């Protein structure tokens, strides 16, 4: 009896609470979506003329080389423009990604912020009007001459967030990334093989390694996303780059269930089924996998350029890197792209100074500094390549792909839920729980549903 009264009254209190509380998000006006984009002519590009500015920068460049480069750049920037003080907050990618949504809807926003290119991140923020359109700055500073089209496309969205890869510019990246093939020079020699120049040679190499009792490929896919970095390059052997870009950017007009995509998934399934990735790639953690590779497991490792320096520390000269062989279009195409672009929130207090900062950290001099500290600059990569070591291979591969070839988008950019859909689907293809055609249907369902909404 008593309990019932208590429940009743607490329900009544609850009801009142519900009535009194306002709808979620209604206390903000949806960001600064109504603010007009600045014109190139009203843009101030001389930082010295901006008065005393305290510039708030949030980034996720916490790892060794990246952190060194940013720190040095900020120091140089402050020295050159003593009227500007940079207040930097750096945190891990995951932390920053999860805070960005909250930070952008608050009143006290940073001036410069690294925002992930994906539709679930940058796309949503653009749609909500929370970022500054950088087109005017791009014109004033000449960013379009500085960057190649395929690099800038990854930071372009239409103002309504529907089209990805085209439209105004919302951010500018500083570093580059590319997925390619690591190989052990000694193991290739032992197999009597050359680095593959075509995909057929690569398939033959995998078989030869298997016959010789070696594990041909190394993959740790416990986290679900690593397989995307193997499937991306592989897909380019079967599917035209144009279709992959449409699929990867989540724009309408492509189809996951086409023959070429199913063939690519089948190849992945065949590799996994034949044990080319070892006994249990899905049970192996990403970081364990590459650590085992450095200790002598496996001949090839398909993965991102960021692994190079750490693996080289163990393997030395034995570790080499190459861009994948030319794909279906006859051009070198592989998953890759840029570090997270630096963007300016719509509500930022010091937009001009923020743009000047972004310009400064992506200048030619900045690229040299990044290379000097051991990172991979997104521009002038080939000329800044070190004399030797795996970074030389990586720089050259990135340059070849980003200038003459095609940098394909990460497939998980496509839709807000695609990272999971694709991660789970590829895991099931590798584990043999899903037929390639069924996996293609799953991918198509997510992509199709999303593009139909647009």
């Amino acid at each position: 009896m008593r309990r019932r009264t208590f429940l009743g009254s607490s329900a009544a209190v609850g009801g009142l609470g519900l009535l009194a509380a306002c709808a979620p998000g209604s206390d903000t006006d949806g960001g600064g979506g109504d603010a007009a984009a600045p014109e190139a002519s009203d843009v101030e590009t001389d930082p010295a003329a901006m008065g005393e500015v305290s510039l708030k920068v949030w980034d996720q460049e916490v790892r060794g080389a990246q952190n060194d480069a940013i720190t040095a750049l900020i120091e140089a920037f402050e020295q050159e423009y003593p009227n500007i003080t940079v207040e930097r907050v750096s945190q891990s990618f995951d932390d920053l990604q999860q805070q960005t949504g909250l930070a952008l809807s608050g009143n006290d926003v940073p001036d410069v912020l690294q925002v992930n290119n994906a539709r679930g991140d940058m796309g949503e923020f653009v749609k909500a009007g929370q970022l500054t359109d950088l087109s005017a700055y791009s014109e004033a500073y000449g960013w379009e001459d500085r960057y190649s089209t395929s690099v800038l496309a990854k930071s372009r969205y239409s103002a309504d967030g529907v089209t990805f890869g085209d439209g105004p510019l919302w951010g500018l990246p500083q570093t580059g990334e590319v997925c390619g093939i690591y190989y052990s020079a000694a193991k290739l020699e032992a197999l009597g093989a050359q680095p593959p120049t075509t995909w057929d040679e690569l398939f033959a190499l995998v078989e030869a390694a298997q016959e010789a009792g070696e594990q041909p490929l190394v993959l740790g896919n416990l986290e679900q996303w690593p397989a995307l970095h193997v499937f991306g390059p592989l897909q380019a052997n079967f599917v035209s780059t144009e279709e992959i870009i449409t699929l990867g950017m989540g724009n309408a007009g492509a189809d996951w269930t086409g023959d070429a995509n199913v063939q690519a998934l089948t190849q992945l399934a065949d590799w996994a089924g034949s044990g080319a990735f070892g006994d249990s790639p899905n049970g192996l953690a990403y970081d364990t996998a590459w650590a085992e590779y450095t200790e002598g497991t496996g001949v090839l490792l398909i993965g991102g350029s960021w692994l190079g320096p750490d693996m080289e520390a163990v393997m030395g000269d034995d570790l080499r890197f190459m861009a994948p062989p030319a794909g279906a279009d006859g051009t070198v195409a592989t998953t890759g792209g840029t570090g997270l672009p630096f963007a300016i929130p719509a509500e930022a207090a010091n937009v001009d100074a923020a743009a000047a900062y972004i310009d400064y950290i992506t200048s030619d001099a900045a690229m040299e500094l990044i290379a000097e500290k051991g990172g991979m600059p997104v521009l002038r990569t080939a000329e800044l390549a070190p004399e030797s070591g795996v970074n030389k291979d990586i720089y050259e591969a990135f340059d070849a792909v980003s200038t003459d070839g095609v940098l394909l988008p990460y497939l998980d950019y496509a839709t807000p839920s695609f990272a999971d859909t694709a991660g789970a689907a590829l895991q099931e293809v590798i584990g043999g729980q899903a037929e390639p055609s069924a996996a293609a249907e799953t991918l198509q369902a997510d992509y199709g549903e999303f593009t139909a909404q647009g």
Partner: protein
Amino acid sequence: MSKSPPSAVVRSRVTPYLFILPAFLVYAAFSLYPLLRAAQFSLYEWPGFGPSTFVGLQNYTDLIGDENFRAAIGNALVLILFYAALPVVIGLVLAAIFRRGQVRGMGFFRSVIFLPQVIALVVVAVAWRNIYAPNGPLNQALRAVGLDELARGWLGDPGAALPAVGFIGTWLEMGLVMLLLLAGMSRIPDDLFEAARLDGAGPVREFFAITLPSVRGEIVVALVLTIIAALKTFDLVYMTTSGGPGNATTVPSYEVYHRAFQLREVGSASAVAIVLTVLVFAINVLVTRIGERSR
């Protein structure tokens, strides 16, 4: 020393509530309000920032057809077996042994069994992830004794992943349950056991006739605690499998996190959270009812 009658304030019907008020305010601000806000969010479509749209109960009706959500609930129910049922059975046996036994170093063994409760869950998860790795200690041990066929990537195998995660839970909760039951058993007067022994009862008979009925209350408490732990488990899944392979190990709490922070569907995440709260509440009411009735 004549007693004066209680003052008007003390006699007032409001007074007891005034005593509760400070605690209630804290409770309301940090528990009730967030719960109600979550309930409210669950009626909206909202990415976590910017404007929101009222959608009524649609987030809930969407859940019915949502494969991931159903998988999550199913997995949570399986985890109850590993987090609650097994630990209670094992804990009972262990506690009974410890109560009877006069083994030397009892305190040491007790501490070792309780230790998992003390270690941060993230550390536990990382340790077990290494144990389950394809070339990890578990598989090495299996291969060493010739059971090569059993060796597998435990967290990557769709059939093995959920039991593998569940077993970590068993290992974790065992110690807690044992300690609770041991405390209950220590309250049983020794004369009871003596009487039973005089009547010719062996250890097994003693256990079922005296020990088990005496600790029924503790068993209910242990079940409530471990079932809650099973239903809201997050850290272990997040750190070991991220819900994979496929969605083989996803759980409701992971779905909440995933929807709110990765898919930016705060409305749907809140709906999952509310369903989870109701589920935890319902199952525990059931457990306590059964416990009380059979007393």
